[in-house]
């Protein structure tokens, strides 16, 4: 039931808030916030129940990887049920969703003034959809949530975005939709193949695991899933929607896009592509690794060349999510743990960066780095936050980004030295673009005479909480890694990967 609540609570609070929206915008803000706080509380509760306090080191091995399950009949004649399941991976992602949900509501507290109720309805709907994606155990249900989160996200960009929002919103939708539909076809194909072999149609993940597929069929179906997740992640040649969407979206939209929607891609690889199609995944791994490397390097170079601060941050996502793809397809437990941790650390750090850029844009109404300069003197609190977050982009030790990237590199090194070295070049580029960003925006002499306030108490709180979390997880990654390791072992068992 808690799993259903995780989806229903934001939905319900969003709808109630919408009803109040036109007359009392503050109510819808508080309701959206409350919904996310409840979800964070529920996630923490699940964590305590299943994994105990972070201090207790021993953990009893569970008989089934699923910690909590819900299964209700839905469309029986087609073998579809409303079935949700939670394992360590889902739990981490759900907790991240609730945390970033709180932050994005707070980050739009003063920035969003038009149609406040509808804004928070859409925000809550995306979060509900994302939670659904992380919890769905029925493949039809998964596809359902997968496409469901698109529409409110489209509205967020299209209504509250910046100058070129209409174009960016449509581009985002089209890219994701073609991937989603190919995945839907692959899901149906898989269910039909399984149905022909077993005699009954089922879309349940646990039934479909271990379906025997001919190599060609396996590869084709795998590519269908791959298309959806590669667009979302985004993988190198399919990333072109991302810079536009991230740049044009309102702050909360960018946070959710970068922090959560991209993670659904990584989650999909780990949950579906590898366990369902182990043989085809192994065969495809070299191509995926090559594309991951291309993404790491290309994203870094592009970020270096941007003068739009938000676009710069967007391209760093392409680079950092390349590490996730790399970690997944090396089939190495250390690298895979790193990939999962990278999803968390990227979610928090890039989310925080987008919030920071949003705050800055609210004040000076531009994102052009060439018009900034010397802002540190105006806003030291903002400058300090930006400095720490830039270091997170680089992967400075002490922040969780370091741990995750280090793990990915370490695991990759064991598989292929060349790949690890090339990925390491990506980190060098990261140093260059991160420092360039800080230098252009906050150091040097001011290009124009900006007069604005430093961060307010609320804004400082939002940013510094996120930074604190980066530091805490960077120093004590063990609580998360403990949960991750269990998932990683299960995934690698299906594909026969080494330690």
């Amino acid at each position, binding site marked *: 039931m808690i799993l259903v609540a995780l989806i229903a609570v934001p939905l319900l609070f969003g709808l109630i808030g919408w009803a109040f929206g036109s007359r009392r915008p503050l109510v819808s803000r508080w309701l959206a916030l409350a919904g996310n706080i409840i979800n964070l509380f529920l996630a923490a509760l699940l964590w305590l129940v299943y994994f105990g306090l972070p201090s207790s080191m021993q953990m009893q091995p569970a008989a089934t990887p699923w910690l909590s399950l819900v299964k209700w009949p839905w469309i029986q004649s087609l073998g579809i049920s409303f079935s949700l399941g939670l394992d360590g991976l889902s739990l981490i992602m759900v907790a991240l969703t609730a945390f970033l949900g709180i932050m994005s509501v707070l980050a739009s507290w003063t920035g969003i003034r038009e149609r406040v109720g509808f804004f928070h309805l859409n925000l809550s709907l995306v979060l509900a959809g994302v939670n659904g994606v992380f919890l769905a155990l029925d493949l039809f249900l998964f596809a359902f949530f997968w496409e469901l989160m698109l529409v409110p996200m489209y509205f967020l960009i299209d209504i509250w975005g910046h100058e070129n929002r209409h174009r960016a919103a449509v581009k985002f939708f089209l890219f994701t939709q*073609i991937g989603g539909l190919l995945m839907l076809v692959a899901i149906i194909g898989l269910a039909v193949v399984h149905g022909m072999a077993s005699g009954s149609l089922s879309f349940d993940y646990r039934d479909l695991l271990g379906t025997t597929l001919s190599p060609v069929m396996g590869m084709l179906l795998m590519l269908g899933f791959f298309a959806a997740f590669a667009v979302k992640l985004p993988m190198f040649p399919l990333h072109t929607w991302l810079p536009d969407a991230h740049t044009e979206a309102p702050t909360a939209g960018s946070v959710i896009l970068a922090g959560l929607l991209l993670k659904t891609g990584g989650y999909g690889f780990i949950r579906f592509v590898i366990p369902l199609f182990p043989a085809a995944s192994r065969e495809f791994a070299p191509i995926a690794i090559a594309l991951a490397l291309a993404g790491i390097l290309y994203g870094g170079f592009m970020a270096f060349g941007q003068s739009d601060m938000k676009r710069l941050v967007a391209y760093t996502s392409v680079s950092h999510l390349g590490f996730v793809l790399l970690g997944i397809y090396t089939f190495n437990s250390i690298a895979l743990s790193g990939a999962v941790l990278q999803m968390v650390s990227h979610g928090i750090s890039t989310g925080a960066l987008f919030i920071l850029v949003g705050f800055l844009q609210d004040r000076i109404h531009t994102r052009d780095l060439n018009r900034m300069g010397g802002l540190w003197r105006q806003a030291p609190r903002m400058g300090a936050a930006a400095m720490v977050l830039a270091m997170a982009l680089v992967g400075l030790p002490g922040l969780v980004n370091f741990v995750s990237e280090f793990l990915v590199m370490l695991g990759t090194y064991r598989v292929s030295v060349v790949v690890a070295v090339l990925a390491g070049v990506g980190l060098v580029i990261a140093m260059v673009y991160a420092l360039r960003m800080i230098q252009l925006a906050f150091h040097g002499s001011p290009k124009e005479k900006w007069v604005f306030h430093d961060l307010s108490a609320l804004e400082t709180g939002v940013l510094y909480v996120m930074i604190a979390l980066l530091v805490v997880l960077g120093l004590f990654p063990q609580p998360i890694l403990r949960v991750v390791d269990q998932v990683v072992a299960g995934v690698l068992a299906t594909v026969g990967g080494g330690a």
Partner: protein
Amino acid sequence: MIMQDILVLLPMLVVAAVSLLVLLAAAFARRHGLAAGMTLVGFIVALASLGLAWTAAPREVAGLLSFDRFVIFGMGLVLAASVFVTASSWAYLRGHDEARGEYYFLLLLASLGSMVLTAASAFATFFLGLELLSVSLYTLIAWRRERGAGAEAGIKYLVLAGATSAFLLFGMALLYAASGSMEISRIALGSAGGKGAADGILAVVGLGMILVAIGFKLAVVPFHLWTPDIYDGSPAPVAGYIATISKGAVAVLLVRLFIPLGADSFVAPGGTGSAFPWVFTIIAGLSMFIGNLLALRENNVKRILAYSSIAHLGYLLVAFVAGGTLAVRAVSFYLVAYFATTLSAFAVIAALSTPEKEADMIDDYVGLASRSPWLAGVFTASLLSLAGLPLTAGFVGKFIILSAGAGAQLWTLIIILAVNGTISIFYYLKIVSAMYRGREGSAAAVDLAPRQPFLTGIALAILTLIVVALGVYPSPMLSLIGLFTGQ
């Protein structure tokens, strides 16, 4: 035995009787509400009488009409859709001065033709139903004579439908010459190359000509050219009628002809019993691509919906090509979903139109969400359903069609469908985006948001409820359809 015949014919008899009553009433009291009310009640009574017809089915009447469960399903679809068209016509025609009784008379007649068409079992009734439908539509399309586009559309439809009838008749004559029988089932047998049923070139040519007529009614490529002009020129409720009932009746007939109802399995053994599955494959693929691509550059909402309906019939044909029981279910479910969705879209257009101005340009919809949020919500739901997004009937419909296609291993068609599903998003979103945009910088001179009568509100609410309910919990509808399509 006569009693049984009357029972199965009851729905048709009701509609025919009410049509005469409406015409008579119009001669004495020219009151809009009276005519609309009688029509509405007539359709609802006919719908209820389907229950009685159910008790007598399956039954063959005079070798002309056959009533099995699927026919009753088709008639139910036609009648239910007619109820909504009537409701939306009433709101639409309120402000107009023209004689209105005749409008409802023609509407009833067109529905009668559609019902005959769904039940046809002989060439004679096939032709009769088609003509009854077409002739009523000529006038309905040109109902608003003061708009140049209306008369033009009426003439266009008249010429093309007339030519189509000629094709149909000639095709029937050829099939009769080849097989010596006037039974409609000869069409399917002829196509399957059944021994002694039909032979040689005559049968093939005859069948081809009949397919031209069917293709014209369904408005699939390459018989689609009339669609945008006719939709554009017709009154919005009539355009909705053409998009749903006129196509649905023919689709039901097509399914009856080519897909034998049989064992319940989700994997079709050999596809449609037709010798020409490739013909339908090509028509389906072309309809999807051409419909969606032509819609991309269009700024007229009615024309967009016209092109979208071409594409949707292409989707429907994918399930049709797949064959098998799941395909019948898929076609049935898709028809229900498509009917509800399309009717609500046209009902919104009808509700927004005033006697002075038809609400057909995208610019007319800019800022609708702030002017009348409920109408915008309804239109959004139906557009998203047409686009096949979750929580709406369109998503489940698309899913079932894809399943039927996958069961028959039609991978090419399925991929084409997926690609087209994406292309179509673009133009549906264009309308949605316009509705939620602010008013600033828009060229539209008038704010179209007339006060809506209660009846329209109810009709729109029910349609939207159906669209969402089918998308959230389709099981009851699937069981219902199973009841109508099972053995």
